[in-house]
């Protein structure tokens, strides 16, 4: 019974979110008004996009702790450009932010792929490097909303069919990533590379290269969110999104994406992010101090990991034992 429920973890998680919304709604009816729900989704959009990027890295057995710093740095760069050269069109800035994110992701990816340094070490290092560069560029000063152009600030707020562009961005990225992971060759290779590197090797998939590609993608999405974040909150400073990488990892872990690589679904990732989004929005409504937020997400991460890693414990079987042994002998000889 318990096992069966765990198999449908996305459905279970969706149910939990629904129950949470309803139970809060029964106490505070305005919480379930449709525009408040749209507001919650809009609030969570950036988390959803980042979690999708993190998910791809986790699938290939990596982890990207530099996402928030990457977001802050690309955001700061476009904010500074917008401040000093107001004539640069917003779409160009959006592309620039995405490109900058891609470069930062590629640096992470190259270090992991080419030098074989564990992803957590690389991204812990680049996290503080990227964050420090923001200080060097901005000199520690802020870029405030009155220094940003109206176009720059307006884009994520523009309504299309009743939804802000920010929400549409999240939906678009969700669909793209979902298609990419389910139907493209590279996307499927992510699962293979993370699930069983030996098997991936024998099927001609370069697991390291897949990690590189996933880091590039997560970097791209982080850069993209860099613009969205700065323009949504209308301020850029050194500590933008400080510690947000933990929320992103938490969203993935809650959504059932294994940190051991190779398993997890886009729907889970979406629900994981929404779960945190609903909690963050509900705390002030039910009168709990926002200081509780950090401890709650920590507890939720621990519980989610406990449930997950027990839920999908499957034994790997080494079917090409002879080949592996032969390789080992070769390695000892050389």
């Amino acid at each position, binding site marked *: 019974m318990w096992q069966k429920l765990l198999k449908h973890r996305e459905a279970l998680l969706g149910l939990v979110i629904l129950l949470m919304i309803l139970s809060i709604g029964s106490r505070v009816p305005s919480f379930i008004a449709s525009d408040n729900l749209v507001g919650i989704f809009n609030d969570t959009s950036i988390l959803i996009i980042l979690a999708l990027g993190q998910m791809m890295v986790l699938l290939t057995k990596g982890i990207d702790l530099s996402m928030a710093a990457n977001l802050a740095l690309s955001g700061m760069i476009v904010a500074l450009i917008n401040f000093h050269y107001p004539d640069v069109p917003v779409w160009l800035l959006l592309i620039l932010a995405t490109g900058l994110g891609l470069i930062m992701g590629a640096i992470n990816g190259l270090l992991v792929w080419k030098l074989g340094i564990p992803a957590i*070490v*690389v991204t812990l*290092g680049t996290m*503080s490097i990227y964050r420090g560069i923001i*200080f060097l560029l901005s000199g520690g000063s802020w870029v405030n909303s009155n220094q940003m152009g109206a176009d720059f600030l307006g884009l994520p707020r523009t309504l299309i069919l009743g939804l802000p562009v920010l929400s549409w961005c999240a939906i678009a990225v969700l669909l793209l990533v979902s298609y990419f992971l389910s139907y493209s060759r590279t996307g499927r290779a992510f699962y293979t590379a993370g699930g069983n590197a030996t098997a991936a090797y024998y099927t001609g998939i370069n697991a390291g290269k897949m990690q590189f590609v996933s880091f590039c993608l997560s970097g791209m999405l982080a850069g993209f969110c860099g613009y969205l974040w700065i323009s949504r909150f209308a301020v850029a400073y050194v500590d933008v999104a400080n510690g947000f990488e933990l929320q992103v990892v938490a969203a993935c872990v809650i959504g059932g994406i294994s940190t051991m690589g190779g398993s997890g679904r886009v729907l889970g990732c979406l629900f994981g992010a929404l779960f945190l989004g609903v909690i963050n929005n509900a705390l002030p409504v039910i009168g709990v101090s926002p*200081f509780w937020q950090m*401890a709650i997400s920590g507890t939720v991460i621990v519980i989610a990991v406990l449930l997950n890693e027990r839920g999908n414990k499957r034994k790997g079987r080494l079917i090409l034992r002879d080949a592996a042994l032969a*390789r*080992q002998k070769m390695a000892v000889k050389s």
Partner: protein
Amino acid sequence: MTSDILKQPAASTSIFQRLLCWEGFLLAVTLAVFVVNAFASPYFLDIWNLSDATFNFTEKAIIVLPMAMLIIAREIDLSVASTIALSSTIMGLSAAAGVDTPMLVIIGLGVGLLCGLLNGILVTRFNLSSIVITIGTMSLYRGIAYILLGDQALNSYPESFAWFGQGYVWGALSFEFALFILLSAVFVFLLHKTNFGRRTYAIGNNPTAAWFSGINVKRHNLALFALVGLMAGLASVLLTSRLGSTRPTIAMGWELAVVTMVVLGGVNILGGSGSMVGVIIAAFLMGLVTFGLSLLNVPGIVMSIIVGAMLIVVISLPIITRRIMKRRHA
């Protein structure tokens, strides 16, 4: 995973020699930094200044010692900085309630130990990845500190409590530094001269083989987690006593500095090798570098770029040199 394990026999033949070289190299760099600092600033060689210099790294270095053992045994604890924050918060609240110094120290150490035990139990009982669990407890522990304190600060510590972080044992030798020297000796002995230390290496090289040779891997790792927690509690006592106040943001980001020191000391981040002497030298090196930079008025956030870059460069250097050596052999 399998391929990593299979590759190891080939690599381990020269690891010992490489480590010897690594420690020599570290020592040379440390001395060089010392000399450069002495020339760069006329105030550097003053005995009281040097004594001051030790303050900004001894608390971290005290956590580095057990962390090195934990990483050698293939685990990691990213929650140490949050453990410091929680332990400091509870000490602060107890002090505000009128608890006296000896009991405060016991409370500080106890909270640290409990945090470490909880990490250890979660990781070993349920077979979970220590990185993810300690990322979770990292925000849990600091989160509790936030719940208890909000945006307040606690600073009603008894006067005698200040001695741990500000007192001197003999001349310019501070209590903190003397304690670090003593603990260093204890940990060198523990890792290199006892069964416990040998088991740590055995587990790090191959947990399965270690288990088959009769080592209770889970209990051993639990003990290591508890030790890291206890030392984080001790660091919290020293730091709180030195600062004389507690905020929820205390020791923010220290886990990065601690892991950097361990890796800089030549410990393989994937476990199985490393030496305590290297780690101790690395702690001195980092301390000297940051102190030298602060004498030159380099802001803290720029130092974090340097620390981050050092972490990556130091790990990639041996990998790159090994690759070049291999190419030469081929």
